[in-house]
């Protein structure tokens, strides 16, 4: 597996997650910091079905998507009841709760040790053992995700979501159900996150709770912010750029003792700088 291959595959997976976060945070205005938890559930479900040889890859992905749709609706329900900042804390709580479950429910998730040896994905009865096949699969998943995002956003549903983000009350006054639109957005975001989780599990062949923790959720948020909220281009640019950044930075000569902290520091500076000078990100709309 070449370096570029794994970079492209991971970035594709994160694009799906970026779309999910963008739908929820950027478009529906639900500030969720628990998308990594839903991502994780998708990954564990697919891992479970494949490792126990219950179904093949595609049905497992479908099951994961359906479960994550239900889960995401459930975790965003509080957002429909409590207002912005309160929901952030609720969402933090959901994320920590999920991490606690991933870490402690040893029988289902392998606990903190994680699940090694997840079989590679298979299509039409053929296992995709070659790395380029897996990369193509991830790219395909990303393309499908992007297509769906594009279709949805150009349809009346997309316009409705944009209107909701601007003014919920005005939308209610025109006779549309804000609740229904938000639940639909949450469902779609759940499907994206669940699919991304399944691809991630089969691509890495190993998952553990550390990939689905609060930091992962915040990284996702950074990707959307840097790429740009509410646009397809932003959701693609963000993950590709942020996953490349640490690799690019290692080519720069910084003393190794502080290089690592410096890298994280740069994420922070990026967040501040973008918020101060370019809240729309590289290719997005105003947050």
């Amino acid at each position: 597996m070449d370096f570029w291959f794994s970079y492209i595959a991971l970035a594709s997976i994160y694009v799906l997650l970026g779309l999910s976060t963008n739908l929820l945070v950027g478009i529906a205005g639900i500030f969720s910091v628990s998308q990594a938890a839903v991502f994780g559930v998708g990954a564990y479900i697919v891992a479970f079905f494949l490792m126990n040889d219950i179904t093949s890859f595609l049905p497992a992905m479908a099951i994961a998507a359906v479960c994550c749709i239900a889960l995401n609706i459930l975790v965003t329900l509080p957002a429909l009841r409590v207002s912005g900042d309160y929901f952030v804390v609720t969402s933090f709580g959901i994320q920590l709760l999920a991490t606690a479950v991933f870490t402690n429910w040893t029988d289902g998730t392998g606990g903190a040790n994680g699940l090694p040896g997840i079989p590679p994905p298979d299509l039409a009865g053929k296992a995709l053992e070659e790395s380029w096949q897996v990369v193509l699969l991830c790219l395909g998943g990303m393309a499908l995700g992007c297509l769906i995002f594009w279709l949805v956003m150009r349809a009346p549903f997309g316009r409705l979501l944009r209107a909701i983000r601007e003014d919920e009350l005005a939308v209610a006054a025109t006779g549309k159900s804000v609740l229904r639109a938000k639940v639909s957005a949450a469902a779609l975001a759940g499907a994206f996150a669940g699919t991304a989780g399944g691809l991630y599990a089969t691509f890495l062949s190993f998952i553990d709770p550390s990939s689905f923790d609060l930091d992962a959720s915040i990284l996702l948020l950074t990707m959307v912010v840097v790429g740009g909220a509410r646009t397809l281009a932003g959701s693609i640019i963000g993950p590709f750029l942020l996953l490349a950044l640490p690799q690019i930075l290692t080519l720069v000569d910084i003393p190794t003792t502080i290089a690592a902290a410096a890298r994280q520091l740069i994420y922070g500076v990026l967040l501040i700088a973008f918020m101060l000078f370019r809240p729309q990100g590289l290719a997005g709309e105003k947050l």
Partner: protein
Amino acid sequence: MTPYLQASAVEVSFGGLRALNDCSFTIQQGHITCLVGPNGAGKTTIFNVITGFLKPNSGSVTFKGQPLDGWKPQAIVAAGIARTFQNLRLFVDLTAVDNVLASLPGQTGEEPLAAIFRPFHVAAAQRRRREEALAILDRVGLSARSGDFVRNLSYGEQKLLIIARVLATGAELLLLDEPASGLSSGALEDVMALLRSLRNDGKTLLVVEHNTRVVQKIADDVLFLHQGHLMAQGSPETIVNDPALAEIYFGGAI
């Protein structure tokens, strides 16, 4: 005959403040009814109650004989009552035509499944709905600006657009919160002409208005609200010329 819209003994209080106090009135179908009264009389509150944004503490509102108690805003719009807001609340990051489109009811592709699985069908339906929206914009005289973003429209144009948006809902009873305030005289004439033509098309209008000149020109019927209570109801002439009401309106307001 059942009254078209009837409010009976509506009470609303916020904390210790009584916004509506035993407020009762009826309005007639096909009329332009103007709602006047000093600031804080409860005009916007009655809008909120009728459109389901606010639950009254007691009392009820019936529309064509049907009580609207506990209805959600979208159900009330579906029943045929739609409103505007005093501060407009347009979707400023959307174009004029998208603002209207966003308010058209029952569009295919308004939920994600149709959008994903029947994209061509949705696109075709959108083309038809866009025609419809453009027609509504044309109705209020904004067809030339359909593709412009709302934030680039003049205030007068925004006021027309908000009427277009409420028209798009297909409601028969339109509640307009100060549609003519802050307009230049030219724009004022346009709005008044539009309101009259809407009435002639069979719409019923309930309009909050401060400008007595406008009231006299457009109103078929006037409701005078004071301290959350209906003080008087009558033709524009009788209300405007009532010295007691003028005292409340001009003297009491300051």
